[in-house]
Structure formats: structure tokens, C-alpha cells
């Protein structure tokens, strides 16, 4: 089949869409469902700007088909903030200057979110390992590590 009716949950809300087999998940998210916080950097599976959570795990959405997400849970950067309140990870990037141009930031935050779900108190080394698939061309990573540490301390 070349066309598929799929159902995905994004940030807790169910969405339906009619998609071509070859539609990439990142295009479903950005172009069809209009969650444009997720970025496309390299489009060659290298940079991690397109990172979203698929069933809770960070993946590169430029390298997954939209149909593969049928019936699954997605979380994008738009899912971090609740009722106008920034998530501690967002607050950390703000407070610790974890971004400059901001291009890598949504992906970086989703990876950080997944890390903190698994390990509430990661060391600098563990943070650097976890974000090693997310490239930042601006910050040199120092402040990103500090931002994630900030969130770790702030989160219950």
C-alpha cells in the first residue's frame, strides 16, 4: 500500500492523518501536524536537530517513516511547557545560556528530557554521552551541560 491512514498521539493529543509510505516522520510532525518546533538540520541522520521522543525514546525523526509511528506516542519540544510554565529543562537553557542560534535546541532538549527520565542525577560525563548524537555548532556544549545539570537539580 502506498497510502496509509495513521493515528499518532503527539504531546498527549491524538491525531489522524492520511500519509504516503515514504513520508518521513519529521515531515508529518512539521508539515502535516504543524509542530514546527522540531527542526531539520542535516537530513542525513547526523545532527539530531530532528530529535523527538517515540514511545519515550529519543530518535532522529528524519530517519523514521511516518507510518512506522502509527499507533505510537510522540513527544516534541512543544510538549515540554505546561500551562505557560517553562519546563525545568527550558528554564535551564535560559538561565545557563544553553543556546545561541537555537537551531539544535529543540532536539537537545528532547534528548535531555529522555536522559533525566532515566537518570535523575546524571554526571557531566553521562550528559555528554547522552547528547553525543546532537550536534551544536555554536555553544561548545559547556553551557548545554550546565543547563541539563540545572534541570536535574530543579526536577523533583
Amino acid at each position, binding site marked *: *500500500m*502506498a497510502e*496509509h491512514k495513521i493515528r499518532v498521539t503527539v504531546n498527549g493529543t491524538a491525531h489522524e492523518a492520511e500519509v*504516503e*509510505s*515514504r513520508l*518521513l516522520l519529521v515531515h508529518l510532525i512539521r508539515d502535516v501536524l504543524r509542530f514546527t518546533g522540531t527542526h531539520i538540520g542535516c*537530513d*542525513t*541522520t*547526523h545532527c*539530531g536537530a530532528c*530529535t523527538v521522543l517515540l514511545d519515550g*525514546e*529519543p*530518535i*532522529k525523526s*528524519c*530517519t*523514521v*517513516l511516518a*507510518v*512506522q509511528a*502509527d499507533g505510537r506516542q510522540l513527544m516534541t519540544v512543544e510538549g515540554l511547557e505546561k500551562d505557560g510554565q517553562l519546563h525545568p529543562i527550558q528554564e535551564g537553557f535560559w538561565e545557563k545560556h544553553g543556546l545561541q542560534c537555537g537551531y539544535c535546541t529543540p532536539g537537545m532538549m528532547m*534528548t535531555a528530557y529522555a536522559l533525566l527520565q532515566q537518570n535523575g542525577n546524571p554526571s557531566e560525563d553521562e550528559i555528554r*554521552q*547522552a547528547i*553525543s*548524537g*546532537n550536534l551544536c555548532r555554536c555553544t561548545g556544549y559547556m553551557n548545554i551541560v550546565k543547563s541539563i545539570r540545572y534541570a536535574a537539580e530543579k526536577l523533583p
Partner: protein
Amino acid sequence: MIPAAFDYHAPNTLAEAMALLARYGEAAKVLSGGQSLLPLLKLRLGYADHLVDIGRVPGLEYIKEEDGYLKIGGATREVALERSDLIRSKYPILLDTALVIADPLVRNRATVGGNLAHGDPGNDHPATMLALGAEVVATSPKGERTIPIEKFFTGLFTTALKPDEILTAIKVPIPASRSGGAYVKLERKVGDLATAATAAQVTLGKNGEVERAGIGLTNAGPTPIKATQAENYLQGKKPDDTAITEAARLAAQATAPTVDRRGSVEYKREMARVLTARALTQAVQWAGGH
């Protein structure tokens, strides 16, 4: 980048998946983690009219010891190796390998079966499986067959798998008690394929001599390389520095690397030598040698 159009199938059972492959033959490809296949389709370096996604087929993701083997399900993801207590405690060579494959995001999807089935000499599991003397289980509508890993890689990006076969499991003989293994990789940055890398698995005998040595080399030729001469040389010898130095020299001799941005032929061969010595030394240590 958008791949050329294809039909996508998401079978819910292994039987259905095999039937689809049998029906479409060469026009179909198995889609597992998609971390090699989708980039190829996007760059239009690869084509398929039909993708058969095995991601919804149950029973292909496991890591267990059974009947004298460590058995890894064909669609087991790299992240599962990283998190497995069995792998962490008993198979350091497999943990070493998983941790240097791509990056954590790719490893959340990439599978061990896909890493072998892709037939890329730059992939990391092939050398490790060569060192471990693994077997690959291929399943088709005709039944199951077991392929020794040294017969599996037939050419650049080609394997012994037939178009209607699914790699359903990898079987590693459980190593004898005084065994150890290590995978050592030189890479320019996280997510790069190896400039050179060596997998070494050693079993020691009663008097500390080498009973069995397995050595696999990554990205050192058109296919993953089993350094047979070096393995044979070590057999029965005490794995001291002199023996390891000579084995590393023999392993480097077995390489046929090509020039690319990762380095010259001479450099890669020299790195294969250095890394083989390091991997052997580490393997012997794990085996309780010295």
C-alpha cells in the same frame, strides 16, 4: 530528502513477513531499524518497490543464554545490548561494540541483525561476531538454516542471505570459563565508521596458553576480515607481549584498506596493527591471563 515512492507493509507475524518477501522477491527489502536503509533510500543510492517492516513482528527482540549459546534476536536494538545485565557482566566485547556504534539516538533504533545484514565492512558487529565465532539464523518459508559467520559476508554490501530470508537470530557459543574479549575502535568522531578497529576474543587453557583466539577487523577491506593467520599463530602460545606483537603484525598483513578521508592505506594498516595488539592485550586481561 524524500525517498522514491515505495509500498510499505507492516506484517504482524513472521509468517506474514516471509510471505511478503516471497511474493515480491528482489523488489522487496526488509526494514528493521532503518538507520542504514532509510538514509540510502533518501539519498537515492538504494531503491526498493516494497519495504517489509519487521518492527511489529513479535519475538525478534531478546538476549538470552540457552542450549550452550548466547542468543540475540534478529531485531534486538543496540540500546538493549547496552542495558542488558547479561551483556554487561559476561560479554564485555559486545558492550564495547554497541557503545561505539553510531550515537545514542541511532542506537535506540538500529538493530544487531540489521548491522550484520547490511553487509557494510565499516559496521562494527561483523568483526565482533567473527571473533566470537557466531552463527546467523536465517528463516524463510522453506524453514530455518544456520550460516557460520565466516561464510556470511560474501562481498561489499552483500551477504549470504537470500531475498526471502529474514535474519531471525544470532547465536554465539557461550565462551569457556577462562575467556575474555574486547573491541577497540579508532574513529574521528562519535558516529563515524572506523578508521580501523579490531575485535579480539581469547580463551586460555590450563597453563595460561591460548586455547582459542578469534580476531575480526573492521573497515579493512571490501568485507569484514577474519585474521585467520594471526589466530592460528596464537594457538597454543603463551599470550605474552612478543606473541601479541607478532599476532598483530600478521593481522595487519591480512588487511586491504582503501584510501579515503579517514587516512592512507599505510596509516590504516598500521592502525589495524596497533589496535589488534591493544584488543588482544585487553582480551587476555579479561580472560584472567595477566
